[in-house]
């Protein structure tokens, strides 16, 4: 066992997945969804992405429960044989590292666009990676505890922002519902569901949760909570910005800047900054952690800490060189991210589960 810590379901299945998805989703997703689904973006988030997220959660937990105490990197060879299994494990590790680099890129892209245009991107990347190294070396328990208070800060900031703009929102901008049928809504749901599917992290975290039988319930709650929160943010953004939502780079940020209550409660974009920096720090740390853990298990190391720093260097460097400009990030999120993410979130875990059932590998049918 590489990770000695034990965490409970509230921390690791409710809050951690929430923070592993929301921080970037809440800024990038409303505009991306609006491009396809227009005023029905909230439906994409509340229904389409949630259904996908629930499916991913179901598969991931069912799969994990067949192999108690093991992560996907460990049990994939058991299911598929040593070569193919190791390949799948390596695939996941690659995917975690790549995604984490993208997350750091998104983080610096937003800060550079909105707050600090003069700061070089590498500064954000290096400091975020440094912060994450400390968290990762601290272990899962540390990340989970940090997550608990960041969760409170995150929700509070969001509630304040949405609460303060709601008074001059025009909710009829959400009409007409399903103007062009369900197709645009599903299309608009592709990128959000790729975000939501990041709950697949549970493949790596499940072994360290103290009551894995109850995890599914918590994970479902987490996915639904994300759906509600994102849909709310999108409803408010749409009713404020109407058809302009899709033209804005960060609707929620524009929303926060627009707040003016009684003429003196203004300029609350700092709340966005708090949400963003605190939330993304946890998000980066979680992905980083599972990447380091997976890498250590892949090479049968006794400890994952030695690989933490090298991965951090890869992360910082890669995040800078991944994209040419911030528009490329968004294009990638719209076009390449969904199929790429869906493969690792639903396709591979489903195949693993199918093969495991067929070859009667792992624990009992009802997930003992």
């Amino acid at each position, binding site marked *: 066992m590489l990770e000695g810590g034990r965490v409970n379901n509230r921390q690791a299945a409710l809050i951690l997945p929430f923070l592993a998805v929301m921080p970037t989703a809440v800024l990038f997703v409303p505009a991306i969804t609006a491009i396809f689904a227009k005023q029905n973006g909230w439906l994409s988030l509340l229904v389409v992405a949630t259904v996908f997220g629930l499916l991913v959660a179901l598969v991931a937990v069912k799969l994990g429960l067949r192999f108690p105490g093991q992560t996907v990197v460990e049990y994939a060879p058991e299911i598929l044989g040593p070569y193919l299994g190791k390949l799948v494990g390596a695939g996941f590790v690659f995917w975690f590292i790549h995604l984490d680099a993208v997350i750091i890129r998104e983080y610096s892209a937003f800060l550079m666009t909105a707050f600090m245009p003069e700061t070089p991107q590498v500064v954000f990347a290096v400091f975020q990676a440094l912060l994450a190294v400390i968290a990762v070396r601290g272990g899962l328990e540390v990340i989970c505890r940090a997550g608990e208070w960041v969760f409170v800060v995150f929700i509070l900031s969001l509630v304040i922002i949405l609460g303060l703009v709601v008074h001059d929102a025009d909710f009829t901008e959400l009409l007409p519902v399903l103007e062009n049928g369900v197709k645009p809504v599903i299309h608009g749901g592709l990128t959000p569901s790729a975000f939501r599917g990041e709950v697949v992290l549970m493949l790596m975290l499940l072994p360290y949760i103290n009551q894995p039988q109850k995890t599914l319930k918590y994970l479902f709650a987490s996915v639904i909570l994300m759906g509600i929160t994102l849909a709310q943010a999108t409803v408010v953004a749409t009713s404020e910005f*109407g*058809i*302009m939502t899709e033209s804005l780079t960060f609707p929620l940020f524009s929303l926060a800047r627009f707040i003016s209550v009684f003429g003196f409660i203004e300029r609350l974009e700092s709340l966005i900054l708090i949400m963003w920096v605190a939330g993304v720090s946890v998000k980066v740390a979680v992905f980083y952690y599972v990447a380091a853990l997976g890498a250590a298990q892949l090479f049968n190391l006794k400890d994952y800490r030695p690989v933490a720093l090298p991965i951090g260097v890869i992360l910082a460097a890669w995040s800078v060189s991944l994209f040419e400009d911030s528009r490329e990030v968004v294009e990638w999120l719209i076009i390449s991210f969904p199929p790429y993410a869906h493969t690792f979130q639903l396709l591979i875990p489903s195949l693993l589960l199918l093969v495991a059932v067929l070859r009667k590998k792992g624990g009992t049918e009802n997930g003992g």
Partner: protein
Amino acid sequence: MEVKRTLGLLLALSLLLIPGGCWSRDEIEKLSIVKAVGLDLVNIGGRAKWQVSHSIIQPANMGHQAGQQGGGQGQKPEWLVVGLGDTIREAERNNSTRNPRRDYLDHLFIYVVGEKVAREGMHIVIGTWMREPGFRLRPWLLVAEGQAMDILAAEPELERTLASEIAGIIENGLPVVSKGYALPFKDFALQLATPGQDAVAARVELSKPRGGEQPAAGGPEADRKAVRINGMAVFRKDRLAGWMKDRETLGYLYVIGEVREAMIPLKLPWYRRDDVSISMTGSRSKIKARVEGGRVTMFIDIVAEGELAEVVETNEIANPDTIDLVERELAREIRSLAEDSIRQAQQEFRADIFGFGHRLRKVNPGAWKAMEENWYDIYPTVEVVLNVKTTVRGTGMTVNTPGIR
């Protein structure tokens, strides 16, 4: 152990760099805080140029009264600096050849667009400003009759700066009189972007104060110019189609249910000489679209409330039957205001400022899709059914006017 501890401490100290976020810095005394921006198109030597005027506050002169008792020399707390350029942003940046400080737009209150720009097309303005991260989308958007620069060069009468004066008129003055209507930049942009909805914006003009009026700040009296905000600029697509006057503006505000307060003079047929005034205290409206056999009808319900504010005649007015009659007259007047406004918008400007098309789309997307192409041809023929309900709640502090005996 010792080494590890030192390293840990150094790492922890390096984290202090993050909360400060200090890569570059902006010192307050090196920033020029722009309170109002004016935008014009001008012709310089046969070439069209953008002219951007910045009204910048001079904090050092904010405290004491300008032009007071000799020494002051009329130091104004505002500095108007004007730049020219081929694009809006270039013109704005060209100001910096004369500005010792860096422009800071986060405290922008007022955005004035010259008439010529408005006739040229407002999409240019939208395309310029929504991209700027330092721009809050909150400033009031006004269209100047004439040049925006001239508006910003006017003198404030009561406030210290013109930007506060204009913002004050919009926030405190207009809601009381309802003869002008200003929107924040965001809402204006949204009107332009929304299909089936044309835009309106506040109209601002220079007004020459009447002979006896004195500005609060002292200053030159004879030729000073003040600003007045009344009426509305009406846009068709993104071009200025024309101006609405007081009466039509009030009608417009009743149609969209945005009248907060107003004073409506009323001619009562049974009075010999004098009129009465009703102080209006609130309004609501509901606009519903219906399509029957390819014809669009808009049903507009207006609910307005008011109170007697001025009755000169001493005949009995404070009895329920008379109040009913007053209510009926009031309803007739509001209906006529609304009709005038709708007629002007439909026939003269052919601009869908009430968002009939947008409202149609919300309830009947199918019909809207069929009409969207030809909406500007259909719009003038849209039938409007007005239903006005008024309530006069009371007679104020007197019952009947006491007679002179």
